[in-house]
């Protein structure tokens, strides 16, 4: 499909030490600690917040790995560490066989073309002073790809890909609703023709009817471009609708990981069971049963005071 060639310029030649056998992304023993400091002038690290504590997983080509957990479980921090937007405290992140931790800024910029991010808040993640065309083409500018003209062409094509009229290039973000802005964010993430997209709560700010449009779009794009997703969300039903495999996070650790249907139908770990039982479902009869079920799990979930 010609649509698949999103960038106007061929992606710069990259060292490809990987064999096809290795998954696209391999994360091993990833840790991210945030130091807690005390003292004026002479600061001492008195403790660490272990936001991500020894996490290992992999994302295969064309696959979606769902990362689910409550706020503060470390799921977004994990996503940021994978993209090297946060420097991990220790551990390894290999993308297409290449180790990302410890790469120089220059080197990192080059590899970053291959993996992009879609943010949660479609209002904060688009610069209100830039036109939609400029926003979508910005990754190309940063990477010095193409000419003004070709970049504009790319932006127009990407608008079409996410379901807009190409004429929208000259509009500004304030003219769009939340769901439409999220489409623009997705178009921007596609600009460099990446292989992996980290979706950080991409639909949690959206209404149900709009949420479904965006989820379907993400599914379509995955098919069309063979994308892999690391899909981070707190909504368990949304994660199920998107993911091949699922990793459940709690307090910085992955407590359970496996095939989506298996994890949802036969959760092995107490925490996963409790989390699933807590979700209200749109059916009053089932809800009565679930309410009883929930009581059994109370001990697992001590509410923070």
């Amino acid at each position, binding site marked *: 499909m010609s649509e698949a060639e999103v960038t106007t310029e061929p992606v710069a030649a990259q060292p490809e030490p990987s064999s096809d056998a290795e998954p696209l992304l391999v994360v091993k023993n990833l840790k991210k600690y945030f130091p807690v400091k005390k003292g004026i002038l002479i600061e001492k690290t008195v403790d660490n917040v272990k936001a991500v504590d020894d996490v290992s997983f992999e994302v295969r080509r064309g696959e*979606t790995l769902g990362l689910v957990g*409550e*706020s503060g479980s470390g799921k977004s921090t994990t996503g940021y560490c994978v993209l090297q937007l946060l420097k991990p405290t220790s551990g390894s992140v290999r993308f297409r066989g290449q180790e990302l931790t410890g790469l120089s800024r220059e080197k990192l910029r080059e590899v970053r073309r291959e993996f992009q991010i879609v943010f949660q808040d479609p209002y904060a993640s688009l610069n209100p002073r830039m036109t939609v065309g400029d926003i979508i083409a910005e990754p190309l500018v940063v990477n010095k790809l193409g000419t003004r003209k070709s970049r504009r062409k790319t932006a127009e094509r990407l608008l079409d890909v996410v379901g807009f009229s190409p004429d929208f290039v000259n509009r500004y973000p304030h003219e769009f*609703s939340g*769901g439409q802005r999220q489409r623009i964010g997705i178009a921007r993430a596609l600009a460099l023709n990446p292989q992996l997209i980290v979706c950080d709560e991409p639909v949690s700010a959206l*209404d*149900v*009817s*709009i*949420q*479904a*449009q965006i*989820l*379907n779009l993400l*599914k379509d794009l995955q098919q069309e471009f063979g994308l892999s997703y690391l899909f981070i969300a*707190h*909504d*368990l*039903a*949304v994660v*199920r*609708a*998107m*993911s*091949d495999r699922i990793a459940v996070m709690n307090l910085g650790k992955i407590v359970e990981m496996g095939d*989506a*249907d298996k994890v*949802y*139908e036969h959760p092995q770990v107490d925490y996963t069971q*409790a*989390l*699933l*039982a*807590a*979700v*209200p*479902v*749109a*059916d*009053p*009869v089932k*809800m009565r049963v*679930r*309410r009883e079920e*929930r009581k059994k799990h109370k001990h697992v*979930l001590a*509410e*923070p*005071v």
Partner: protein
Amino acid sequence: MALLEVDDLRTYFKTRAGEVHAVDNVSFKLEERKTLGIVGESGCGKSVTALSIMGLVQTPGRVVSGSVRFNGRELTTLKRRQMEDIRGMEIGMIFQDPMTSLNPTLTIGTQLTETLSRHLDLSRKEARKRAVELLEEVHIPNASRRLDDYPHRYSGGMRQRVMIAMAISCNPKLLIADEPTTALDVTVQAGVLDLLEELREEHAMAMIMITHNMGVVAETADDIAVMYAGQIVEEATAQDLFDRPEHPYTEALLGALPKLDEPDARNGRLASIPGRPPDLLSPPNACRFAPRCKYAGSDDCTTVPPELREIRPGHWVRSAHPASERVREPVGVS
């Protein structure tokens, strides 16, 4: 006589661009001890409905017409002072964001006793004692010690419990909860919903549960009203609404919801609703859902505003093409 009767409520907001019809012809009844769930997406008017009942609509908004009868008393014509006597005393309200609805510069105790001393003739000591009881009632551990803490020492779920304690402090007959669990994690949400149900029983309260979450209403409500673009488009008992939704919007909304227990959901597509809700500055003059409705044809849908009618006992719908009367296939589907 029902505890609360809202009849043809209209609340408009004057803006430079024109008048926004945020709530347009909303009517419902709520019996004592019952829970009514109001569901809808952002901007459908569910919160403004609650604020209108409470007399809390601020300029440029205005309750343009309609009546709100509570316990036989008309609320829309009350003076400010009289309304203040009812608010907090007979009708309690909890808001969505427990982070911003508590004053960060006052202790929890001060804020709790404020409501008590406004409405009840209590000494300082008595008010304090009652405040401790209230915190215990909403299951806050070490209540007497935590009374003198400031809100930042409480977690999100615990703050919402404090808000609930305040709302029920004067034993109101009606509790209005506006998205009470939206800012909370699912596990914390479950605890708060359980608490609300427990208190509703104990205090024999009626409740209006406003939320965008279909699961939350399924769990808490006896009756459910679905709002779209400022109007109630469907109202029924919770069971009937989920078993046999009639309005094309309700059907579509339920279809668009990812299901927790759907095997192989990964490989399916979600049913989405095309387009987006209308601009309430100039809503469609007939059926407000018509532009997004797959059953709307060139007929009445675009010319005659549909009335809310009773399609079977207790089930009301505002549509020319409710599910059980439908004979034709969706327009444009071959």
